[in-house]
């Protein structure tokens, strides 16, 4: 608690800074693309949120594993706290993608592999959150959601391949950091990196904050139970 309490303002501040600078830079100071026009500006929201959405699930997976193996309570709560953040990011990526798709591909939605697997990720998040909410006992809920998270991860990977097999799509290929030169000019690249950092930090800050809330909630419950029995 203390450690997270000390870190939180810094992380949050840094996140805000990166986001504000990155987004303002991206929004106001980048030129239009010769092919896509002004719509490239959406990239500064779309790509970072997609990134965070995927990594959010990874965080949940790791936290679940730690809980199952080491029975470390806080890590179960981290997983619980990360899910709503992850699903919001998924929704942002889906929505910005859809809005982008309308001018670019002439349709809001297409059953492209990447889009489809993202939709499936959204469903996994939804099921995971629903399961957390449906179970009363916190220990049981933590255990069951961890099991779901692990099995779900395996199936998420399976679906990824299934979807790729099923349709070769419209969407941009992966062009992350390694070979950036070939795909993207620096004008877009720097603010994009900034935005990615901003989204990551925002994710971190929100997870910290929400974990703290969850910890307090558990403590509150414990205290109330004790009072009731006394």
């Amino acid at each position: 608690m203390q450690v997270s309490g000390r870190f939180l303002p810094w992380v949050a501040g840094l996140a805000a800074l990166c986001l504000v600078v990155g987004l303002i830079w991206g929004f106001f100071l980048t030129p239009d693309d010769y092919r896509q026009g002004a719509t490239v500006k959406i990239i500064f929201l779309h790509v970072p949120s997609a990134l965070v959405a995927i990594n959010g699930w990874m965080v949940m997976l790791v936290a679940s594993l730690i809980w199952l193996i080491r029975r470390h309570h806080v890590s179960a709560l981290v997983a619980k706290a990360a899910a709503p953040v992850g699903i919001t990011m998924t929704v942002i990526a889906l929505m910005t993608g859809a809005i982008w798709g309308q001018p670019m591909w002439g349709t809001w939605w297409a059953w492209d592999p990447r889009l489809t697997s993202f939709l499936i990720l959204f469903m996994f998040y939804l099921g995971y959150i629903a399961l957390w909410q449906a179970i009363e006992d916190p220990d049981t809920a933590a255990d069951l959601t961890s099991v779901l998270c692990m099995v779900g991860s395996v199936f998420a990977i399976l679906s990824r391949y299934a979807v790729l097999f099923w349709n070769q799509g419209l969407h941009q290929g992966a062009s992350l950091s390694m070979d950036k030169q070939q795909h993207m000019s620096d004008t877009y690249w720097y603010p994009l990196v900034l935005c990615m950092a901003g989204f990551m930090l925002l994710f971190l800050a929100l997870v910290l904050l929400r974990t703290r809330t969850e910890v307090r909630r558990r403590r509150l419950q414990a205290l109330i139970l004790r009072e009731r029995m006394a």
Partner: protein
Amino acid sequence: MELRVSDLSCARGGLIVLQGVSLTLRAGQARVLRGPNGSGKTTLLRTLAGLQPPVAGRIDAGADAITYASHLDGLKATLTVRENLQFWARVHDRPVGDALLRMNLDGLADRPAQALSAGQKRRLGLARLLVTGRPIWLLDEPTVSLDAASVALFAAVVRQHLADGGAALIATHIDLGLDAEVLEMAPIAARDILPQGGFDEAFL
């Protein structure tokens, strides 16, 4: 064949309900659990039966020695009385034997369980104990809904089980007429309330 419990704590709904339960039950012995509603009898029996993990303490009994009869009877409404019993017998890999006769159910053997009255259902639930062949019986208010004659019948069954070297731990509000020590719930009621090592404790 012996049930040995030492310094057991049990929790329910995140709260410790019982603490420091120690008891030994030898072949041929019965023990009656007595305590007011909500004092934790069901919790104790479920813990001993292995249906919920103890918060602390040890439970020693041989492998597959315990069987538990809860508030629910585990009957399938569409199976007949005989089929219900046969299923449990086959699960435990033993013959049905005279269990129907001993619980006075032979006249109802071919009725589906849904057409039994409350007391008849309960008798069928108790007949299951006979076909499991397990020595230690944990009984949670076994006589609920039973009339006086059936209570006597059941008490005789328990007595026979003890005579055959079995043991029984019985939570009940009425007197079964068994020669059994009483285990009061009051002294083992929890003093501290929160589970150790559980979720909550970490946050206090």
